[in-house]
C-alpha cells in the first residue's frame, strides 16, 4: 500500500474545483495560505504576479487585434460599391449601414482572411496557455464559465470570428469577476454578440428575434422563468437599432432603425423613445433583467453547477441567488457563498472533468512545456488544436448559443477513447510537447516507487488500487527497474486513471 497522501483532502478537492487542476506548487500555496485567504487573493487578479504567463504569450500578437484597424482598407471597396456617405448621421458612418454581413466581409477580406484566421487560432491557444499556466486560476475558471454563458460561435460568419478577440479581451475578461449587470451590458453591446445573434440587423418593422429570445432564455431569466412569446417580441423590439459600426467595428445605435412604440417585457415597460435616446431603452431593460429574481436564480444555478454538482441542490441555489441580489449582482460574493457551503465540501469527487478540463489538468499535472515561442503553427500549438478538437471541446467551437454543456452526461457518455489517445500521446512525447518523465518519477528507480511518485505528482491523491493496477498492467514487480518506454506508458495510463477525470 502506498503512503497516505501528504495532502489535506479538503485542499485537494478545493484545488480540483476552483482551478484547472492541482500542481505541487498550487497545493503548497493552498497549504500555506489556507483556502479562504487564497480565494480572497484570487478575487483581485491584478494583485497576483502573472508575468510568467504573460511572457509565454509574447508571440501571440493577435491578442492585441482590433478590427477597427482594418477599416481604412475597406474604404476603397465602398467606393466601388458606389456607397454614398450620409454625412448627417449621428456618427457620420452610416453610409455602410446598408451593407450586409457578406458585403462587410468582402470589404475586409480577402486581403485579411489569413490574418483573421490566425488571430482566432492565437486566441484559442492563448485560452489554453492561460488556463494551464496562469496563477489567476479563479479568473480563468470564471472566464470559461462566462464564455459558455454568453457563447458566441465564430463559425457563424467570418465577421463574428474577427470580433472574438475583442469579446474575450474587452467583454468577458474585464467583467468576469465583477458585477453581472455590467457583464450583461458589455455582452449585449459587443460586436461579436450583435453579429452572432443577428441583432445587428434587427430593425423596426422587421424585427429579428434571435437575440431577444436568447437574452431571456439563456443570458438572463432563463428558460424556466415563464416568459412568453410577447416578452420575446417586446425584447426584440427594444433592441432594434443596436448594430455594428460598419467602419469602426464597434457598437453603433441607429436611431432610424429603432422601434419608437411602447414595449413591455417581464414587468418592465417603456412608453417608447425615438432619436438617439432610444438606446437607453435597451440599457434600462438589461439592468432590469440583470436584477430580476429569475436571473439571480439562473446565474446562481450556473455557478453551483460548475463548482458543486450537475444537479444543483435547491437550497444552495436559493442562498446563492439571495447573495447575488443582495450584492447588486456582484459575482464574487456568490462564489464565496458557494465555496463556503457544506454542499461544496461534501461533493468531492462527484463532478466529472469536461474534455477541456481533462486536457488542461493533464498538461498541468505533467508540467508540460508548450515551447517558446508558443504559436498556432508550432508542433505543440498544432497538437493543442487537434487534441481539443478530437476531445470535442476546442475553445470557441460550441455552435449553440448555450455554449458547451456543463453537465457530464453528454461528455462521459461519448466514451473515453479520445482521452486515452491524447493522454498517451502526451506521455510518449508524440505530441511535440515536452514532458520531463524522469522528473515526474521524482528520482525513484524501482517500479513501485515510480508508480507512487507519478500518481502523487499527477493526482495528489489516488485510490489505493491505482498502484497495483499500473504495476500489474505493465507486468512490473515492486522492485523492478523501469525502462524509459515503460515509464512513458505508466504516465500515459496514470493520466487516464479515474482521478484524471474527477473535478
Amino acid at each position, binding site marked *: 500500500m502506498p503512503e497516505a497522501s501528504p495532502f489535506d483532502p479538503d485542499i485537494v478537492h478545493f484545488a480540483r474545483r476552483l482551478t484547472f487542476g492541482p500542481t505541487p506548487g498550487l497545493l503548497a500555496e493552498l497549504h500555506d495560505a489556507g483556502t479562504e485567504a487564497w480565494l480572497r487573493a484570487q478575487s483581485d487578479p491584478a494583485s497576483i504576479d502573472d508575468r510568467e504567463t504573460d511572457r509565454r504569450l509574447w508571440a501571440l500578437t493577435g491578442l492585441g487585434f482590433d478590427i477597427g484597424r482594418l477599416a481604412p482598407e475597406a474604404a476603397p471597396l465602398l467606393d466601388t460599391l458606389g456607397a454614398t456617405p450620409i454625412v448627417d448621421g449621428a456618427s457620420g458612418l452610416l453610409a455602410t449601414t446598408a451593407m450586409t454581413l457578406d458585403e462587410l466581409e468582402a470589404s475586409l477580406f480577402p486581403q485579411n482572411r489569413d490574418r483573421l484566421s490566425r488571430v482566432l487560432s492565437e486566441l484559442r491557444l492563448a485560452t489554453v496557455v492561460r488556463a494551464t499556466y496562469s496563477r489567476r486560476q479563479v479568473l480563468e475558471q470564471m472566464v470559461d464559465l462566462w464564455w459558455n454563458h454568453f457563447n458566441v460561435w465564430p463559425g457563424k460568419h467570418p465577421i463574428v470570428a474577427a470580433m472574438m478577440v475583442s469579446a474575450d479581451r474587452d467583454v468577458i475578461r474585464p467583467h468576469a469577476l465583477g458585477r453581472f449587470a455590467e457583464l450583461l451590458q458589455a455582452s449585449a453591446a459587443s460586436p461579436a454578440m450583435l453579429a452572432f445573434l443577428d441583432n445587428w440587423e434587427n430593425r423596426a418593422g422587421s424585427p*429579428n428575434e434571435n437575440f431577444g429570445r436568447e437574452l431571456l*432564455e439563456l443570458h438572463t431569466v432563463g428558460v424556466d422563468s415563464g416568459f412568453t412569446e410577447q416578452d420575446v417580441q417586446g425584447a426584440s423590439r427594444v433592441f432594434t437599432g443596436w448594430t455594428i459600426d460598419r467602419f469602426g467595428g464597434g457598437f453603433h445605435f441607429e436611431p432610424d432603425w429603432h422601434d419608437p412604440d411602447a414595449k413591455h417585457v417581464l414587468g418592465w415597460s417603456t412608453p417608447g423613445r425615438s432619436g438617439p435616446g432610444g438606446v437607453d431603452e435597451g440599457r434600462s431593460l438589461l439592468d432590469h433583467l440583470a436584477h430580476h429574481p429569475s436571473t439571480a436564480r439562473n446565474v446562481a444555478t450556473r455557478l453551483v453547477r460548475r463548482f458543486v454538482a450537475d444537479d444543483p441542490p435547491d437550497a444552495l441555489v436559493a442562498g446563492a441567488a439571495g447573495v447575488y441580489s443582495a450584492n447588486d449582482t456582484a459575482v464574487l460574493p456568490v462564489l464565496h457563498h458557494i465555496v463556503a457551503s457544506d454542499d461544496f465540501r461534501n461533493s468531492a469527487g462527484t463532478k466529472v472533468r469536461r474534455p477541456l478540463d481533462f486536457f488542461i489538468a493533464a498538461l498541468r499535472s505533467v508540467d508540460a512545456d508548450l515551447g517558446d515561442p508558443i504559436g498556432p503553427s508550432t508542433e505543440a500549438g498544432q497538437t493543442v488544436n487537434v487534441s481539443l478538437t*478530437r476531445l470535442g471541446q476546442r475553445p470557441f467551437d460550441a455552435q449553440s448559443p448555450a455554449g458547451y*454543456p456543463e453537465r457530464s452526461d453528454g461528455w462521459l457518455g461519448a*466514451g473515453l477513447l479520445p482521452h486515452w489517445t491524447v493522454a*498517451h500521446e502526451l506521455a510518449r512525447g508524440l505530441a511535440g510537447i515536452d514532458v520531463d518523465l524522469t522528473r515526474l518519477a521524482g528520482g525513484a528507480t524501482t517500479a513501485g516507487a515510480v508508480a507512487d511518485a507519478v500518481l502523487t505528482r499527477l493526482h495528489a491523491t489516488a485510490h489505493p488500487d491505482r498502484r497495483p493496477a499500473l504495476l500489474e498492467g505493465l507486468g512490473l514487480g515492486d522492485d523492478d527497474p523501469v525502462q524509459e518506454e515503460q515509464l512513458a506508458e505508466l504516465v500515459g*495510463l496514470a493520466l487516464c486513471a479515474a482521478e484524471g477525470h474527477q473535478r
Partner: protein
Amino acid sequence: MSPVNVSRRRFVQGAVACGSALALAPRIAFATGGSSAGGDTLVLVVLRGGLDGLSAVPPVGDGGSYHDPRRSAAVPEERALPIDGHFGLHPALAPLHELYQDGLVALVPAAGSPDPSRSHFDQQAVLERGVITSVDGPVGWLARHLSAREVAPLQALAGSAQLPMVLHDAQAATAVPSLTDLTERLGRIGDLERGGATLRRLSGDGQIGAAAATSTAASTALLGVAPQSSAGDAYPTDRSLLSLRDVAHLLREGIAIDAAVVDVGGWDLHVGMGDVDGGRMQSRLTALGQALAAFHSDTAGLARPVTTVVVSEFGRTLSVNGSGGTDHGRAGLVMAIGSGINGGVFGPWPGLATDALDDDAVAVTTDFRDVLAEIVDVRLGNPDVASVFPGHRAAPLGLALP
C-alpha cells in the same frame, strides 16, 4: 406506376453486390452477435437549428399563401420537384427525389411537439427526450429503446464528439466524430488488449468505470475494422455529413450497430436564406440530399435493413423576416428513408391560411413521436413503445412497412 416494386428490385440487386463485403464479417467475433438479430439499424439525422420544412418540401399547392410571404425565398411551383400534387421537393434535393420516386421516402410535413415553445433548447430537449415532462430511467428516448436490447460494442454511435441527449444514459454509446482519425490514433495506445484491461481497472467503478468499459469494447471492435472505407465517395465534404460515410462503412463491415445519431448543424437561418438557385438554404439542402442518397446507396443491400430518420427541433416562420431569413416556428418536416418505409406524404396538412397558422408558423398536426414510435415498433422490432415514449399514446401513420 409501381415505385415500391422498383425499390424491391434495387434492394435485391444491392444485396447481391454486397455479398463479398458481408463475407468478411465473421472475422469479427461479435459482428453477427445477438444485437443484430431482429430490427433495422436506425440512423437518426438531427438537423440542429430548425430546418425550414417550407423550403425542403414546399407546399406549392398552397399558392399565394405560400409564395407571397416567402417572397424571393419561395420555391417557385415550376421549379419544385413534383411529389404528390400539393407538395414538391426543393430542386437541391434532387438525389432524394429519386429515392422518393422509388417509394423509399416518407415525408411528414407538419410534425412537431405539443410544447408551444420556440426555443431551440426546449424543443431539442423534447425531441431527444421524447417526453414533455420528466421521466424515470434513461434520459434519451433512443437510450430507452436501446435499454431493451442486448449490449454490444458499438451498439450506439454518435457522429459527433459529444453524445447527443437522445443517447444520454445509453448502456453502450461511443462517439466517433471521425473513424479514420480515431482508429489511427487508437493504435498509438500500444498493446490495447492488455492496455484495455488496465485502463478499465484504473477507471474504477462508477460512471467513469462504466464509460471505460464501453470504450475498451468499442476500441477492440474499431481496431478490427478495415481502415480503407468500403463506402462510396459521393458524400459532400461537410464534416458532420461525412459521419454518414463512417456509419455506412461500419455497417458494411458487419458491425452490429443498433443506432447511430448524426448531428448536422447550420439550419438556423435567421439571415440570408437566399433563393431557389443559391444561398445558404440551397447549399445546405444540396449537401444533405447528396449525403442521404449516398448513404442509402451504400447501405441498401445489407442483410440488416437500415432506416434513416431525419428530424429537426422545429420549422420556421412562414414570413421572411427583415434579414432575408426566417425565425423560429412550430411544425416542421420529419423524413424517413429506407427499404422498410412506405413512401409518400403523411399526416394532415393544416394549410397556410391565416387562421390555420400558429402565429405565422405551420401548426402542428402530427406529434413527432407518432412517427418515431411507429418506426420503433414496426422497423426496430420493439413493441414496447410505451416505455420509449411514456405518457404518449402513439397513433401510427402507416409509413413503416411491416
